[in-house]
């Protein structure tokens, strides 16, 4: 009898944990105080090219998922853009030349240059995102080289990273435990001041789930609510006015 109760309890805990993993996407964001105080308003954004990487983790190691990664990159970019638009933010792609006479190749090289600068601080930013408040991270005023930066308040970087576990690997995770026991996906958003290059916002949204690859097919369900929550916290676009009222 006692054993039965224990088994039932364990099953209940498992069910709660699994449902929890499905239903919620833990998310964190860090902002510069001037954003929180409303001194820096985010009403327009220049979208840097998104980059998302998926890999399949099986019993025989890691495999690339090039096609799925490409699809996911587009999905995540569209998702973030849609939620920013809903928040009342005007968007421009980083590749937009606007009134500038810059060629496509010139703009692509500027994007690369800014991405290189971002690459240099990304690791430190991930490690200590709280330091955004100390104005520790900057891409430099090279950001102004992007024609779209002239008409935007922020540059937005969208990154995604996901691991899709095969059935074998999941079973192994069930037996052995450890960090690779469930498929997981992370969406990272970074916002830089389009005039000075200073990093003013950083959000990390993570989701782990045990069955299927729903975070790829259903990114809206996975990240949608969490994105709105973070945009609200960061007082982006219309959320700033809502807080004022």
């Amino acid at each position, binding site marked *: 009898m006692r054993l039965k109760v224990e088994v039932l309890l364990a099953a209940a805990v498992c069910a709660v944990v699994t449902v929890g993993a499905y239903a919620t996407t833990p998310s964190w964001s860090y902002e510069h105080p001037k954003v929180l105080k409303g001194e820096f308003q985010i009403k327009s954004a220049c979208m840097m090219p998104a980059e998302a990487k998926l890999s399949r983790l099986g019993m025989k190691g890691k495999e*690339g998922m*090039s*096609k799925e990664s490409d699809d996911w990159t587009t999905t995540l970019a569209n998702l973030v853009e849609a939620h920013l638009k809903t928040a009342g933010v005007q968007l421009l792609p980083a590749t937009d030349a606007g009134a500038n006479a810059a060629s496509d190749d*010139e703009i692509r090289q*500027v994007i*690369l240059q800014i991405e290189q600068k971002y690459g240099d601080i990304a690791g430190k930013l991930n490690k200590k995102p709280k330091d955004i408040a100390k104005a520790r991270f900057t891409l430099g005023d090279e950001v102004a080289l992007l*024609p779209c930066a002239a008409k935007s308040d922020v540059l937005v970087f969208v990154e995604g990273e996901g691991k899709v576990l095969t059935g074998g690997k999941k079973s192994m995770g069930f*037996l052995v435990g450890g960090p690779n026991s469930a498929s997981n996906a992370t969406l990272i958003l970074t916002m830089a001041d389009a005039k000075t290059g200073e990093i003013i916002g950083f959000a990390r949204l993570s989701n782990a789930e045990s069955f299927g690859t729903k975070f790829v097919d259903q990114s809206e369900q996975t990240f949608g609510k969490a994105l709105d929550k973070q945009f609200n916290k960061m007082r982006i676009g219309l959320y700033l006015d809502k807080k004022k009222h």
Partner: protein
Amino acid sequence: MRCRSVLITLTVLAITFGWTSPVSRLCAQDQDKAASEFKFNDIDRQVLEDCNAIDAQYGKKGLLLQDPDLQAYLDSVGKRVLGNRPSPEQVQFKFRALRDPMVQAFALPNGSVYVTTGLLSLLESEAQLAGVLGHETAHVFERHGYLENRSVRKKALTINILQIVASAAPVGPNFSQAALLFGAAVQLGAAVSSQVLVASIFGYSREMERQADSDGLKAMTAASYDPTAMARSFQLLDEDSKLEYEPFQGFYRDHPKLTDRRTFALAYATTNKPANPINGAEKDFLGKVTPAICADIESDLNSRRERTAVDRATRLTSLFPDVPKYQVLLADSYRSLGAKAKIPSDDERNRHGQAEHRKEYFSMTQQEEQKRLLGKPDGPATLQANRTQAETLYKSVLQSDPTYSQAHRGLGFLYEDEGKYADAAVEYKAYLDLVAGTSIDHLRIERRLAAMQKVASLSITH
């Protein structure tokens, strides 16, 4: 007690070698298979698909250096190294320059050979480039990419099975002492054999590199290039690695030591030199790869590799002293060095110093690093020396051509850094007048100018 220890040791050994030797045998079989016997399976086709996707990504992101003359040059050297060997199945050789400051080259199994701008800016001659292309094409001919992937998959599967076995080992208070000892032995055996397998993955990779060196030497010699050039390029790689801190230095290395590779290439060259070997003069070679060197200097400056930027720009200016673009690139590099010395000190070069700097590189931003350097006893003097060097170079360009806009721009940045706002404003204005709104960075300079004028007016008011 002694008997028990022996038993445990034997169990560990049995588990370790019992598991690893069949896998090692399987992998060795792969290695011995001739490339001609290679047959595609589903996994290889997936790898091929991924490689094609990587090619497309590089193009889409603008990472390929688009310069028709440089492309034609790479194609001609590549074609010469390939000779009349037929391409293997599903291989189409393409030689490309990749915008990347890291000094490296790599080949994808589909035949795409990438040489980074970092490596192109380090090499001295066409024969050295031929050696690099010979080595990389050998990887493709020998199907190393596919074979390594197959080998890694087998080893990964074994490691995972070992982990499952180890997790099932008896642990806890409910087991007898003998069972617990057996469990500990199983866990230890699994851990040891996993490490052996990981080491064997790197060992296999090193073996492939040796084979590619050997085949590359044969290919370049067949194309009448001097094989000693490959030995020289290993020496250059070794020397260059001491200029910047290697970002990662793993316990296992997937390439043999550069000194060993150099010795091997020299030994080959003594007995296999062609009758009239082509080497190519440094100036001719640099003349052909200058677009790559210029792109590399810019990437170096964006990636905190200022010392490399100074080194490469110095090479350009010493061979082509009258080209203002190269003088300005060198001046930009000196300006970006800030308080950093252009060559690492002995303290920075030793093992401890390198480890310290690697740690700082990952934990400090560029601004924090400069602040730390300025706090050192020789920091302010180094900063001043670098700034003086930059100013001299900018001014020398303007002396020959007062309309050279990039020199005005550079001087503006330099004076602004030094707090000489009035001088900086003059230079920025000169730049803006010369580019007349056509340059991509005019907005950036206009903003800087406006900010400085604001500071100047504030100081007058006060």
